[in-house]
């Protein structure tokens, strides 16, 4: 009997595919259901944010950068403001710093809740998606109450924040935290011990720590591989030194650890927010010296913060004029997607979906 002839075939996963979270295209070379080779094709969402920023004033850059990583737009506001403040040696009032931390951490919780829902959805459990979004809604309401926006906030400005929180913010925020912490047990009850969830995520798509570091993977994905590296501790910015929180680390580097780690992070973020709410000082919310035509002296600086998807950075160069000479942005997803072909092969397409989901890649951050 002659040997059966088999051949590899190429599947285009994306750009419009339910589980690529945006418009990512993965060219998969497959042997049956097994993936031999992954080739990410990006650029479908390229909006030339860096080029646009070069033609805007510093203040005008912030709303543009909202669109850089719209799931945690607060972080994008913040990282640009941080870079500009470092360039211009701008003092930030204490109340503004606390408000920033509250907003950043609330945004982190919201983003991780989306992660929870979307990952469960990608692995085939439809219900957690709605649960995750339901609690995110509480946080969105808080943001809407503060700055009128639910997705692209334009809230954190150079030298402070755009407006003060309304008086009902603090009680509402405490209530939201209480509800979320109660419902965390629901989330864990739905998935953590679920045998199907375990076989789908445990030991799947292990990202070794060396590979992760070599490819610049950061954030929760890196910490799930056993590297304790969190910029809130390792390169402190804002007032994170004042709060008592842990950096969760997990050591297997598989999909399950990446998922658990994010749930841990929600808890830590809630700790930070409640501490910040307790010690929220009164006072100014914006440095009045920062004018609309903010012109930092010539110089260059790289600001980086810990975002939900890893290190979010801006390299900002000023030549002393009203417009930045260069705004180079760096998002965690870019590196996470880059490392995917190097460890994501030799598994089934269903594992790729789980892997892609737990990397928590969003495409606007990759394509910019």
């Amino acid at each position, binding site marked *: 009997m002659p040997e059966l002839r088999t051949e590899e075939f190429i599947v285009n996963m994306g750009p419009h595919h339910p589980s690529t979270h945006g418009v990512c295209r993965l060219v998969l070379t497959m042997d049956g259901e097994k993936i031999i080779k992954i080739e990410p094709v990006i650029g479908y969402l390229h909006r030339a944010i860096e080029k646009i920023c070069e033609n805007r004033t510093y203040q005008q850059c912030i709303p543009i950068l909202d669109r850089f990583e719209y799931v945690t737009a607060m972080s994008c506001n913040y990282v640009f403001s941080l870079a500009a403040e470092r360039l211009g040696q701008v003092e930030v009032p204490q109340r503004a710093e606390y408000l920033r931390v509250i907003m950043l951490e609330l945004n982190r919780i919201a983003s991780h809740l989306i992660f929870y829902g979307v990952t469960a959805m990608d692995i085939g459990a439809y219900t957690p998606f709605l649960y995750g979004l339901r609690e995110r809604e509480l946080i969105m309401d808080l943001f809407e109450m503060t700055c009128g926006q639910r997705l692209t906030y334009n809230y954190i400005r150079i030298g402070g924040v755009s407006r003060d929180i309304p008086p009902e913010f603090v009680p509402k925020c405490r209530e939201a935290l209480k509800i979320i912490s109660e419902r965390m047990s629901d989330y864990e009850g739905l998935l953590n011990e679920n045998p199907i969830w375990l076989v*789908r995520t445990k030991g799947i798509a292990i990202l070794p720590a060396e590979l992760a570091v070599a490819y610049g993977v950061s954030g929760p994905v890196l910490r799930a591989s056993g590297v304790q590296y969190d910029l809130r501790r390792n390169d402190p910015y804002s007032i994170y030194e004042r709060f008592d929180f842990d950096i969760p680390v997990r050591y297997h580097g598989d999909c399950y650890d990446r998922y658990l780690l994010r749930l841990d992070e929600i808890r830590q973020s809630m700790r930070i927010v409640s501490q910040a709410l307790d010690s929220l000082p009164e006072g100014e919310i914006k440095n009045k010296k920062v004018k609309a035509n903010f012109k930092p002296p010539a110089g260059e600086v790289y600001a980086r913060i810990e975002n939900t998807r890893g290190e979010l950075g801006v390299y900002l160069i000023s030549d002393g004029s009203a417009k930045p000479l260069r705004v180079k942005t760096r998002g965690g997803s870019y590196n996470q997607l880059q490392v995917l072909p190097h460890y994501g092969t030799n598994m089934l397409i269903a594992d790729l979906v789980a892997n892609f989901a737990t990397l928590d890649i969003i495409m606007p951050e990759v394509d910019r």
Partner: protein
Amino acid sequence: MNDHLLAVLELHGLFQWLYDKLLTVGLPESWTTVVAYGSLSVIVFGVLALVALYLIWWERKIAGHIQQRFGPMRHGWHGWYQTIMDAIKLLQKEDIRIATRDRVVFFWAPVICFVAAFLAYVVMPFGDRLIVADLNIGILYILAVTTFTVISLIMAGWGSNNKYALLGGMRSAAQMVSYEVPMVASVLTVIVFVGSLSMVDIVKSQSGLIFNWYIFRVPFGPIAFLTYIVAATAEVNRTPFDIPEAEQELVAGYNVEYSGMKFAMFFLAEFVNMFTVAAIAVTLFFGGWNGWQLVPSWIWFLGKTMLVILLLMLFRWTYPRLRVDQLMEFSWKFLVPVTFANLILAGVFKQLHWYW
């Protein structure tokens, strides 16, 4: 009079009355048979189409309430005619036929799927004396015709000339063939007790109290039911075994290139299949139409079937999806041994009358 009313409520009296009327018209005998069976199949088809539409609504409501939302609310009370409007919408949608399709295969796949889904109802006992034809190989016939679905899914996957559809078709073939084995073995466990393949005989052997139902014939009934319901879930491609149309992996699997009414045929067939496996479960394990006498038997049958379907729906909206190889492992390494051991022990114990 009371007996007559009861017979009408039981519907078989109604059909008998209609048949008597038909006889008085004076058609030749062969024509009478043709007209009788023709109208009967139209009735069964119509009822099932309505049931399928209702199931879609029911599924959406259940999904909604599990997910802390309402589901359809706009069309009528709690959106009761939402799916009818959906069906009308699908009917008037453009039928997109991709240029690179395999014409014949692409066209016939939904038809076969649709027809195969309805064929099982020839021998389905909806109630006391409510059966189109009481074949003496009833359950065997059902298991045979529902297997056509596999062919239609492979045809859909092949005819679409789309890699996702092809993968979906291949997956469905592998999955449905593997789960056919434990499903048949679970069914056989009951057959061992009944000693007949006729659906009516199976139901009649469970007549009487609730403890005559096979699910309560410990120790074999419950195990057989559990293995059957798991295999049946896989057989109708529902989560956690919905890999042929895994939305997040294969977009929509075998039906990715279908649109309009052809898609609706797959969709309706899926729900009819779900009703089929639930109805078989009721017939085999829950005593079919047997129940408290004052309520018509077909209501008992439908009610029990709905409860089994509710179980399937709860599975779907709470569990994640298995991976294709884990699915196969689960079937061949766990379900098949368990069902066969159960079957053999059931036979032995039946001979020794060691059951309750």
